[in-house]
Each structure stands twice: as structure tokens, then as C-alpha cells.
């Protein structure tokens, strides 16, 4: 049986336990606990072949170093915000994506698992100003046609089994706004596991400003754009 690794640390113990148990329930996995220190021990346990996800708070990290630390983990990571309080019940997942194949294939698995667990999936597409569509003929038809095609291209679940949201603006801010508007229990983001300056801007914004657990799904292939946490529609 697979395991969800819950990283227990002072100040985040109950919250991490609560989220890890819910994630494990969905994945039909057990919860395995690991002390926060030494960090090398966490990395070693996270690399165990049966570990399918890692749940971690970051009460003990400075925010700026969190991504640097978890970037060494090649499994999906659920980061529990400092302010989060149990109990935790996972019913609604927000999946922001812009539609790159790498992002889509990474998140598709998360979406499939979510759907298999009867979670309500909301796919959020955020367009920046330079990726706003060139044409929008008749809103009554274009929105639906465009959304259906977007989902058909980048999500494997039939469009009628999920909700679709479209926002225009800075991706990080728009995701935070959507979280506030829609109230999901989890945000699933693809990320390239790189945290050097200029990278993972969207991930940083979402981790900093969203008060719900965030699932970081490692991307199979990296690019500078993908490292922002989202990728461009090709």
C-alpha cells in the first residue's frame, strides 16, 4: 500500500496530520510520519518508493527558503499554511492551468484522482494580457466553445464533469482571487522544483497568500515559464 508522508513539526502538527489523513483517505494510502528534523531524514523518507505524496507545513522554514528545501522532493507535496486549522475535509479542488502539455499531464493525474474520489474539480485558466485571445466573436457561443476545447486539449476528464473558470490578469493574483471567490479546499499547481530568483513566481504568490492547502505537482519537463507555476498554451 502507498503511503502519504506527513512531516511533523512544532506548530503545524495537528494541521499536517489532519490534511495528511484526508489525502491518504483519497489515495487509499496510509499515513507515515516523519519528524521535521533532520531535513535529510525527511528527504530520505520522501524518496521511499511507496511514498506517493508528502504533506508538510512550513512553520519552521523561513518563507523564502521553503521552496528551496522542498525542491529536492520529487513527489507531489501538499503544503499546509501556517494559519490552517483542523479539521480538514477535502471536497473541492481548484486546478489552475494555462495549458502546456507538461503542466496538463502533471495535473491530469491530480484531476483524475480528484474525480475518482468524487471531488468537485474547478479548472481555472488564467490568461495574461499578452495571451488574451485574438478573437471573441459572439460571447454566447465562443466562451463555451473555447472552454470545451481548452478542457479537451489539456484535461482528460469530460468537460461536463467539472467546472471551468477563466480569468485575465496576473496569474498569481488571479489564482488568489479565485481561491477567495470559490473557496476550494485545495489548490493544485504544477511546478518545476526550481526556486532561484525569478522562478516560481506564481507558486510563491499562491503559497504566500492562499490560506488553503496547496498541492505542488512536479512537472516532468521544465522551462522558465513553467517554473512560474503555470505554463503557456501552445
Amino acid at each position, binding site marked *: 500500500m502507498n503511503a502519504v508522508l506527513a512531516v511533523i513539526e512544532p506548530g503545524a502538527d495537528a494541521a499536517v496530520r489532519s490534511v495528511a489523513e484526508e489525502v491518504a483517505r483519497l489515495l487509499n494510502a496510509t499515513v507515515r510520519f516523519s519528524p521535521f528534523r533532520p531535513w535529510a531524514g525527511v528527504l530520505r523518507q520522501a524518496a521511499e518508493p511507496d511514498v506517493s505524496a508528502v504533506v508538510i507545513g512550513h512553520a519552521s522554514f523561513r518563507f523564502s527558503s521553503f521552496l528551496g528545501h522542498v525542491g529536492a522532493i520529487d513527489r507531489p507535496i501538499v503544503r499546509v499554511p501556517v494559519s490552517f486549522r483542523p479539521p480538514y475535509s477535502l471536497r473541492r479542488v481548484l486546478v489552475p492551468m494555462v495549458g502546456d*502539455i507538461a503542466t496538463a499531464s502533471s495535473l491530469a493525474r491530480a484531476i483524475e484522482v480528484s474525480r475518482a474520489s468524487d471531488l468537485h474539480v474547478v479548472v481555472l485558466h488564467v*490568461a495574461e*494580457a*499578452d495571451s*488574451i*485571445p*485574438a*478573437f*471573441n*466573436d*459572439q*460571447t*454566447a*457561443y*465562443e*466562451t*463555451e*466553445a*473555447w*472552454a*470545451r*476545447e*481548452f478542457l*479537451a*486539449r*489539456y484535461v*482528460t476528464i469530460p468537460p461536463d464533469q467539472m467546472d471551468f*473558470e*477563466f*480569468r*485575465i490578469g496576473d496569474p498569481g493574483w488571479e489564482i488568489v482571487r479565485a481561491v477567495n471567490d470559490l473557496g476550494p479546499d485545495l489548490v493544485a499547481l504544477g511546478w518545476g522544483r526550481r526556486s532561484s530568483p525569478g522562478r516560481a513566481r506564481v507558486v510563491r504568490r499562491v503559497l504566500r497568500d492562499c490560506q488553503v492547502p496547496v498541492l505542488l505537482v512536479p512537472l516532468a519537463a521544465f522551462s522558465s515559464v513553467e517554473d512560474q507555476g503555470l505554463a503557456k498554451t*501552445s
Partner: protein
Amino acid sequence: MAISAPARPRVRPRNRPFPPEIERRFEALIFDWDGTAVPDRSADASDVRDLIEGLCRAGMDVFVVSGTHVGNVDGQLGARPEGPGELHLCLNRGSEVFRVAPRGPRLTHRRSATQREERALDLAAAVTIERLGARGLEAAVVSQRLNRRKIDLIPLPEWADPPKAIIDDLVEAVDARVRAAGFAGLPEIVNLALAAATEAGLPEAKVTSDAKHVEIGLTDKTDSARWIAGHLATRGIGPGLVLIAGDEMGPLGGLPGSDSLMLVPELGRSTSLSVGVEPSGVPRGVLHVGGGPDRFIQLLEDQLRRRLKGEPPGMDDDPGWSLSIVGVDPQQERAHESLMALADGRIGTGGSPLLTHAAARPLVLTAGAYDGPKPESQLLAAPLWDRLQGAMTPRSRIDRLLDLRTGLLFERVVAKGAGFRSVRFSSLARPGLAVLAAQGDPDLLEPGPAIRLPADAPEVRASRRDDSSWTTIRSEDSTIATTAWQTMGGDRRTASLVRIAAYVEGPPRDRVLERSSGHLRAARNAGVERLIHEHRAAWARRWSEADVTLEGDVELQRAIRFGLFHLMASVADAGEAAVGARGLSGPGYAGHVFWDSDVFVLPFLAATHPSAARAMLEYRIRRLPAALDVARERGREGARFPWESAASGRDVTPTSARDRRGRLVPIRTGLLEEHIVADVAWAACCYADWTGDREFLLGRGRGLLVETARYWASRIRWDRSGGAHIYGVIGPDEYHEPVDDNAFTNVMARWNLRRAAALGNAAGVSQFERLRWLEIADALIDGLDPRTKVYEQFAEFHTLEPLIIAEAAPRRPIAADLLLGRERVHAAQVIKQADVLMLHHLIPDEVAPGSLVPNLEFYEPRTAHGSSLSPAIHAALFARTGRLEEAESSFRMAALMDLDDLTGTTSSGLHLATMGGVWQALAFGFAGMRPHQNALAIDPQLPSSWGPLEIRVRYQGTPLRVRVERDRIRVNAGGRTSLLLGNASAPLAVHRGQTSFERSGHSWKEAPK
């Protein structure tokens, strides 16, 4: 493929294989007779006859090319083919063509020499013999055949009738003889004969030599080949599907081989071979097979064997005429299926892979069949006729090719070491009929049910009758009946499949199932090969009416033809044609009919295939009663056509929708976008102006002009100073709503009133009412500033935020409503697409003279081009004003709208209106063509990077091929017609044939012949 062959010729087991280039099915065979098909004229040709008759019966077109006369060739061949393939004898060295049918040969073409030419031929031959004799070379005229004189260079008994097998010896003997007379060789003698012909007054004489003879003639085999190329074009058979065989392709005695004359540029993509000895080799590109007539017979047998085993037709991958997609890209697949859609005006079928694939979206749509009289009505999904059993695997390989010339969709699949090839089409000759033929490994080619029901079909009945299966799908408005039949053939190693499905749509109580069965029965009786021939020929006729060629840009050329193909495929040319915004290529826009149909699609058809334009107007005419009712219910008079129309003719525009920001927004176009009323009237006049069918406007089409005028007359409101206003509308720029006195709406209404009034007494409208229309027209506020000549798009437009989107946006085109938000664009001078400028495009005579340039300069920078309709119209307007780089750039974008999926919504269907706009940009914009003053105006403005542009139209019944260059116009007219060139004030008449004109300053003058 199933061949209904009562008597098949015996096909022997295959001998050694042919070169790979020939290991495929060809659709036409051209061959030399003597030496290629038979060793000599006394040989038994019964094998050739049987094979040719079999090939014609199996659908191949066969052309025999020979220098001799019909008595010789037909006497020896004696074939009497029944078809569907045709047999032609192209004889007398290019001067005659006979079509051979069961009753024998019938002359279909002859080049007849004039008396002057006959005398010149005699003189040329006499002078040639005299000059040869003067050098000691005895020669003699051995025959005076049609259009030529044959001179024997070696009139010796031992060389009286040399067999082809000793051609080497013959060449050697003749060469020795001519060299003995002091000539350098045969070429010098040919040049001598040419010079004699020129001196005799035949500068274009054809002089050939088969070593023994030199012939001076008016024609040669090149004329045969050119005639064949032209004939094949009418059959829809491109050069890539043609096999040319001869035995003298290579040089002979220093002269080009006589059969190489068949290799004309018009057949340039054909495959050619020689079965001859070819002592000097064959020209580059010709395959030397050798083996003489025996090998040629094996070639015929191979071609017949392929057809009898069900090999699908050959595929012509001409880049200017085809669209190819390799593999299945899950991201792009649905868009690709739209691009590869097949349609015949009645049904449309997406170009999905035949095997199931997760990314595919198989779809069949039936024109005008909606799922009910409700605002959310949409086209009914019809049963699927093109599905095979089994699914693609990740390792499957597939490629699809759509032949735009013929509307055939080819597909090749290889999976698990097995494979199949297929062809399918939606018959343009028999609209509603769909055909699939496939051949391949039995393990992979499993047919499954002939028809499958679509998901979520409403009331369905399905069963089998005899060896066919049938279904009916019913909604409140219509019933779709589908009857299908399929058969499998082949053996353990190779299976073949033929499937035919017949669709008929009609009102619920119509006997559609019986009609569908009848169509299927007739199609089965015809056989697949005949269906293919009919279909190809139907497409060839359409292209002959409508093709547009743009030399020097392969990408644009293909994009243009791609658009024309789908325009032609999407519109029926009989009955009524409900042309939805996406045609029959996808479910987008629910199949609803917008102004796209009347203003963007119809002009192309009015100018090329009027019966299709007429069918589109018939759709509006049959919904006139609904439009009259709606006007009355709104307290108006006349007819108020709906912004979105489906079956009933009442408005089916949704009233709200979620925008891309997820907000529910009201949709008010159904209530307010009333210019559709005048657009319908404009379409009726467009048809009448192009066709000259003025009776239409006084007869069945009268209501489209008169009742729309009545609507406007009742729609206006007077102000105290006598101005007439139209309040509360939406113009083509849909970013601003509602607005008062939209210039487009008002000027179109004014035009509508004036045009209807111009019908006079004959329209049955009182003089009082007509005068009132004219009074209203004169009083309508149009927003024109007489000083600047700029029309204010609507009242108070100039008070909005003067935001120049060309400067504010990161790029254009851009959906400015998404970039800035609805509220911001509503408050700013940002417009979606041509609005005022649409007047200059549609009714240039109704706007102020000289107002195009200032309005283009004012509005274009304020236009986001956020509508897919915008680039093509602006291309036309840029061209008219000489801004040719911008014209070309806008044009390219419009032409590639779907091919490059620039909207991201090609998956839901093709942008038919954009395609219509592309044609308009070419015809109205770059060529400057439009009906004007009872003549066809032509005023070309071509980008410097463009080669000649040739457009085919039919103006008032006369077919025209108009070829324009920057400083030259060439018109090929099928009859007498009137032209208005450049800024000329008076039309000039041109007659049947070709007339050329050259630019002279700002005007044009006829060029010397």
C-alpha cells in the same frame, strides 16, 4: 472495391514487380499505340481490348495516343467499353479525338486546317523534298494525312515497314543515309523542314520524326496530351493520378522521342514510363521498364487487378490542392477534424480517424435539421456513417489527406503490423450520399455496424431491412432518415470494404425513410466507381466556375482553395440552404444562421454558382411569414428577420451567457442587432446584380426587398427638425449597445428603402408608399461630417474616451472586451470590427464620395479586430485605398484563420464567413471587381509581392476568367459582356474569347492582340 462487372477479363498471375513508382492505382492511363500497346498494326490486340474494357468498367479513364487514324487504331483495338471509365482515341497526331462507347467511336474534337494551311503544308513538304534532293537525299511524300505531310527519308523496299524491334538498325540506316548526303543528322533535317514550314506561312508548325519519316503538321502528340489534360480536369483527375506509357520516350537520331511529346507541363506531376528499347536512354523522370507490348499488357493487368481487389482510388498530394495531417495530435485533433470535414451541402462529416481515438469527436450534421423551435435549438447530430470497429493504439500510425480538388478524404492506418487504406466522400453529385471504401489487413479492417447512433440523439428508431440498416432521428421540426449498406470482400490476406449511406432530412411527417432507401438503392446500382466519377466530375465543374489562382505563393494558394472548398461544400444548390456560421463542419454556433450567411458567404456563390446563392435566399423567403409576424408583434410593419435563425424563422439568439471571466452577461443582439433586416435585402440584390436575374426581385424575392423596406419605414422616428432616426440598436461593432443612429444600420436602411423604391410599379407598391420611402431615406441621419467626410459610428461616439486600441493593446487583433472589460470598451472609442467601414465595403455607392480614406484612417486604428470577420474586410478596404502591405497582412491572417486555428475555436467548426470574406477581399478588394452600372467593374490593386491573380466568376450569365496583374488585365469571356475598367465612366463591351488591357495612367486601354 466492388465492381459490377458482368464479364471480367482474365487476369493472369502477376509477373515480376514494377518499379515502386508504378505499384499503385492510377486513375487515368495515357499510352502510345504502336510499339507500346501492340508490336505492329497487324498484331492481335484482343488482350489489350479485354483489359481496356475491364479497366474502363472498373473506373479507369484510358487514352490511346497515336499518329494514325481511327480506322487503324479502332480496327485493331475494337474496344467497346461501357464505363464509368472513359476510352478516348487521340489520333492523327494530335488533330482528332474520338470517344469510344459501346456503339463505337464518336468524333469529339478535330483540328481542321484552313485552305491556306493546307496549301502551306503542301508547299512546306515540297520545299523540304526539293532541298533534300538538292543535297542528294531522295525523299518522298508518302501520305497527306489530316493536318500533316509525311515524308519518307528512306523510301527503299527493305525499309518499307520496319518493326519496332529493329529500331536501332533503322536509326543507323537513316543516319548513314542523311550523313551521306552531307547532313549532320536527323536534327538538321527537322530544322530544314521547320524552316520550310515557316517560310510557307506556318511559324507554329510541328515537325516530328520517327527516324524513317519526317512529318510537317499543324499538331502533334503535345496537342493530344494537352487535350487530355484539359479533359481530365473536367473529370476531377489531377496529373498526379495519371500514368503515361510509351516506347519512344528517349531521343532517337538526336531528336526527342515521339512519345516524349506527351510529357507536357500540364501533366507535369504524372508518372511516365517506357516499355521500348530506348537505345539512347529515357529522359529524366521517365521510368524505363522495357519489355515492349507484353510488359505493357502486364501493366494493364496489374492496374485491373488492383481495382478488382478493391484498392481505393489513388491519392494526389498536389500541395496546391491538398491538406495533409500526419498522426493524431490530441491537442489539435478536433480542429484538424474541422479542417478535414467533408460536406455536400446536405450533410457534413468531421474528418475523424475511422478507428476510435480518445481525442477524436466523430460528427455528422444535416443542414437545416434542428432539434426544436426553441432559443437553444441546435443542429441535430445525425447517425455516423464512417466508423470502423476497433480503436487506435498509442503506437498506431495514421495519415490523412484531404484532396481539395475532388473532396476525397484519404486515410492510411498502420497498427500492430497491419494496415489499411481508405477513401471516403460526401457526394457532391448526389447530396446526402456518403461513401467509404477501404482495403487492408482483415485483422485491422473490421467494419462493425454500417451506421452508429450519435450520443444523446432524441427520438430514435433503428432497424434492418433486407441487407441494409436504417435509422430515423426525429425532433419537433425535422426527421433525419439514414439508410446504409456495406459489403466486405477480399481474401485471407486482404479485405476490402464498401459502405454507402444515404441521408434525407425533411419535416416530421415527410416520407424521408422511403426517399433515403431509394437513394441508397440507386447508389448501389451505380456502383462505387461510378459514384466516385460523378463526385469528382461534380467538384471539377464547381472548380471550373470558381477557382482562384494566385501565382507565386503556395501557402496562400492552398489557403484560398481551402476556403473555397469549404464554402462550396457547405451550401446546397437546390431547395433551401440554411447556412450556419460554421457550415456543416462543426457544431459551433448551434448551426444558427447569422448575417454571416447573407453578407459574407452569399456573394461568392452569387458570383460563381448562383443556384446555391438562390437556395440561401430561398431559406430566407420561406421564413418571410415568420419575419412578418415578428414585425407585427413588435408593432412594426414589414418583415423583421432574426439575428439568429434556425428552423422556424423566429429569433433563436440566446438571451444570456457566461463570458470568459465567468460572469453571466445579457445577450441583446437578438433584440437589437437589426441591421440583419437590411443585410437580407442586400443579399437578394447581390444575387440579382451578379446574375442579372431581376425578375427575382419582382417575383419570389420581392418580399426580401419590399417587406424589409416597410420594416424600416415603420422603425424610424422623426425629430422636430425633420430628421429620421433609428434608436436603440447594435451595429456590427458589438462592443457598444444599445446605440442610437448607428451609421451602418441607418445607411443600410436608407439603401434598402431606395433600392426597394427603385423597383417601381412592377413591385406592386403604390407610388405613395415609394415616395414615402424616399422621403424617409433622405431624412435618415447618417452621422456624416461633411467637412471631414467621417461618419460618426453612432450618436455620441465622438464623446467617448478617445482610446486608440492600436496604441493601447499589446497587439492586434485582440478581443478588446476581454482585455479591457465590457464596461471600458463600452465607454471608449474601441470597436470590434468594421462598422462604418462595412458600408464602404457593401454599398460604396451609398456613402459620400471620397469618404473611404478618411473613415479608414479614423476607424481602423480604433478597431481591435476582435471579430474573425474583421481581417478579411479590412484587407479588401486596405487594397481599395492602395495600402497594399496592410492589405496583404490582413489577408494572410484571414486566409489562415482556421488553418492556423487563430481563434482557438476551429474545433467547433470552420469560420465560413471569414472564408467568404477572403474571397471578397480577393474579388472586391484586390481585383476591384463588383457589379456596377450594369457592368462588371474591375480595378486591380495587387501587392508587389504577388504574382498574377486569376478569378473565375459568372457575371449576368457569362462565365469570365479575369486575370489581373498590377498593370495588366486579361479577360477570358464565355460570351459578350460589359466591363467597367479602372475609373472609366462608360462600360466597354468584350466578346467571347480573350481580351487584354494595359494600364495607362489612371485608365486602361485594350492591348494589341
